[in-house]
């Protein structure tokens, strides 16, 4: 709150030293660490008023290279797996239908117009033992963006398509991954994707990594997710 004078002197009245000191003390306290956010005029600060990162000669670092970091998820447990299944489309295995990967989706309610920048990566492997039909095949991984509370089938973004392969049987490259060795190891692909989209104030944005499973069961590991929001 703004500085207020504790003692207001009255005309034709003697000023006491104590009163004057009280005023000075209050003023000193206000100026020395008493100024708060509300005392600064809104929309009065430009980038020149903010301490910048040292970019040369000292440390090449940048204070404002990123936006606001909205949640970060990093799976550090090497043995932690999540699972996906194609059971939800068991009569239509080859159709493109997606399900969200656990812990790889976020909801952001936009406070202002702005851009959301989404960085995610994970390893998804279809399990050979449970392939409903061997060779069908590479499960698709996508970024999906939905608005409000409605997720529709076309929310996934085709250009973010990545492949998560099944674990082949030795000697047969059933999933066309290029692997004909012992099953399990060599069909793995790391999926990484960055994507952004601009939204309006009030938008309820749901961003997720989704998988279109083509095997009966698949596991997902080594997940990583960052969400940056750049308000305009």
């Amino acid at each position: 709150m703004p500085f207020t004078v504790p003692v207001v002197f009255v005309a034709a009245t003697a000023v006491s030293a104590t009163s004057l000191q009280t005023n000075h003390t209050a003023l000193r306290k206000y100026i020395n660490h008493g100024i708060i956010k509300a005392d600064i005029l809104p929309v009065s600060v430009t980038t020149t008023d903010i301490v910048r990162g040292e970019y040369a000669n000292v440390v090449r670092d940048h204070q404002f290279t990123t936006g606001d970091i909205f949640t970060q998820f990093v799976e550090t447990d090497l043995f932690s797996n999540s699972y996906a299944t194609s059971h939800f489309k068991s009569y239509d295995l080859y159709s493109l239908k997606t399900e969200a990967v656990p812990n790889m989706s976020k909801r952001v309610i936009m406070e202002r117009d702005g851009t959301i920048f989404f960085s995610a990566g994970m390893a998804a492997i279809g399990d050979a033992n449970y392939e409903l039909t061997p060779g069908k095949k590479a499960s698709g991984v996508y970024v999906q963006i939905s608005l409000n509370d409605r997720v529709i089938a076309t929310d996934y973004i085709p250009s973010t398509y990545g492949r998560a392969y099944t674990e082949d049987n030795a000697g047969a490259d059933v999933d066309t991954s290029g692997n004909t060795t012992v099953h399990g190891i060599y069909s793995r692909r790391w999926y990484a994707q960055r994507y952004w989209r601009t939204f309006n104030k009030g938008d309820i944005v749901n961003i997720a990594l989704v998988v279109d499973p083509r095997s009966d069961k698949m596991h997902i590991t080594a997940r990583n997710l960052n969400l940056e929001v750049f308000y305009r």
Partner: protein
Amino acid sequence: MPVSVDTYEGGDAMVAADVNADYAAIAAETAILDDENTRSEWCSRQHISQAGNATFNLNFAQLEDSNTTQVVNSTTFAQVNLVPAFRITYGGLVLQPGEVLRCHFDINAIAATILSPAGTPGYLANEDSDCYQFRFFFRNFVSGVVAGFGPTATYSTTNKGTTVPPSTGIQSVDRIGQRCSLHNCFLNATAAAISFDWIEVRARVCDTAYLSSVSIKEGTFQVFRALH
């Protein structure tokens, strides 16, 4: 810096000069208020002028493709063109000293054509003969010079075979379906501004005698500028 004033005690005679000095000190020192006068992190978003573009991060640009396949079959870096071409044109975007361009691409390599000695383990002419590569290039709007920047993302098409351990030897099967990506922060660490005409993604194969082509598809390309 902290503001200092004289200290008075009860019974002291009022001296105009002392009082005037106090207010003069306040007037002088409040003109140079700094972090000793304010609380930490007092500057919040509501204080920041949002006139015009976003204050800190500008010039978001994104290209994406979902259908077109491009065959990369040259050892010379050539523009990735998944229709649209992966070129973001600025026509003179000025990057001041200390500012950053954040550049990203993600592209699928869906197929590869490996020539002799395809199908049989052997040894490559060079350690990168089985590789394909991606790199960012830009054109200087002032000088017209085109140059690559950042690292070269390199992917191998060979895979571990059943009989040959990992080595420089070409393997019996190729490794395809890899989603390729590169993230680079282009920092203007010079003392002068740099003007960008355009930025694009280019790709090549390293040795057409071994790897004649790679097909790429489904990609995104993104660039934006960050102030320091």
